């Protein structure tokens, strides 16, 4: 037996993402954000997207391009404080924003990736984030039902990949990437380096290949990936 090859071009990897699709995007700030895949999503132009991402990046970076192009109808996120456009669009009612506690967003995505219906938590129980959500008692203690999140497409930034789609991440660029890489019907990974099959140690793979559909090697690391000099 050998494992199948999933390397492809960026155009083919993203082809056919439909209007109205739900798109998960990895990253926490700059590290782990798949800037190159996001540019291709802007170029291909799918409209009315629901985007699930920890944050909205900063002006002229990552998710901000999708906001500028008007492709995003809804953003499920935890913190958009570094993106003035996102806050303005939200305040003007032109962007629907759903805030989650950060670890709960992580768990909801993971639950989708794990084929669960949701999780039970007491996080945010005394806050407005809990409003309108189902609750349930276990042994007399009340929990909030947080539903699983899945997406049509996940855009992932990896450090290294092999041709089967095994991925690793480096430092704090890991964040939401391995969770989202489990939780979408089509998982597309950009990798700084694509190795021959067997190039990653089986013990040190962070995302196993069966979760990944397409692997795209980055031909350059653009300025967006670099140190932010504020």
């Amino acid at each position, binding site marked *: 037996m*050998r*494992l*199948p090859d999933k390397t492809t071009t960026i155009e083919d990897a993203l082809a056919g993402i439909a209007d109205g699709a739900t798109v998960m995007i990895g990253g926490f700030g700059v590290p782990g954000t798949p800037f190159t895949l996001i540019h291709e999503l802007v170029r291909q132009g799918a409209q009315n997207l629901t985007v699930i991402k920890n944050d909205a990046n900063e002006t002229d970076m990552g998710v901000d391009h999708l906001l500028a192009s008007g492709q995003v109808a809804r953003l499920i996120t935890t913190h958009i404080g570094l993106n003035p456009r996102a806050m303005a669009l939200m305040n003007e009612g032109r962007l629907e924003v759903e805030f989650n506690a950060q670890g709960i967003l992580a768990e909801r995505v993971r639950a989708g990736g794990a*084929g669960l219906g949701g999780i039970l938590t007491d996080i945010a129980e005394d806050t407005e984030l809990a409003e309108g959500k189902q609750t349930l008692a276990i042994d007399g203690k009340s929990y909030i039902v947080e539903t699983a999140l899945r997406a049509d497409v996940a855009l992932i930034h990896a450090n290294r990949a*092999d*041709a089967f789609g095994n991925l690793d991440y480096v430092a704090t660029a890991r964040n939401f990437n391995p969770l989202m890489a*489990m939780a979408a019907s089509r998982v597309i990974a950009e990798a700084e380096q694509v190795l021959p099959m067997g190039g990653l140690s089986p013990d040190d793979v962070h995302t*196993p*290949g069966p979760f990944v559909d397409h692997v795209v090697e980055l031909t350059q690391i653009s300025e967006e990936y670099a140190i932010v000099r504020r």
Partner: protein
Amino acid sequence: MSDARNRMVARAAREIAPGMVVNLGIGLPTQVVNHLPADFPVCLHTENGLAGIGPTLPPDRADRNLIDAGGAYVSTVPGSAFFDSAVSFALVRSGRLDLTMLGAFEVSQAGDLANWKVPGKFSPGPGGGIELAQKARRVIVLSTHTDRAGNPKLKTECSLPLTAQGCVARVFTDMAVIDITPGGFALVEHAQGVSIAELTEATGAPLSLPTGDIPTF
């Protein structure tokens, strides 16, 4: 292994399409892999935490830390990955497992599967079988057509505790290949030397026959 069982296992191997992620249960299903070409592109999954199972190894060449879910000493292939038990079943439940082949105590004409408990006699526990049966995109059973006493394993209804309801798509036995359809058991192929009358007799529920010639394996 009997000749008919061997042909059944070889026939079952044709269910595996290139590029699939496949979990092969303990027993007959494990043998299926021996009938694939050496360079066939497939990812074999085992629920104890490996995608990309390589050949089984004899004890003197085995790694004490590398087994499949049945306890056999296995190996890796280029591109294998290890993961924990939560990730392993995340893969199964979220639809990344294209195919599983499982053993059975009983299969009903509605595709119900019973393969983990014989009350009062043998209750080893379900292991990972429930999730494999319920969530693999296609579930195939490999089994003898009858139990050791000669009683049919294919029945109108399962009498044993269920593993999962309505999960089985196709059954391979030493006597036949049978699909589960909305109308119940439907014969696809029969084993060489097994007559339709013998097959009907050994099947505990109505068996619809295809029109025209029935292929053999």
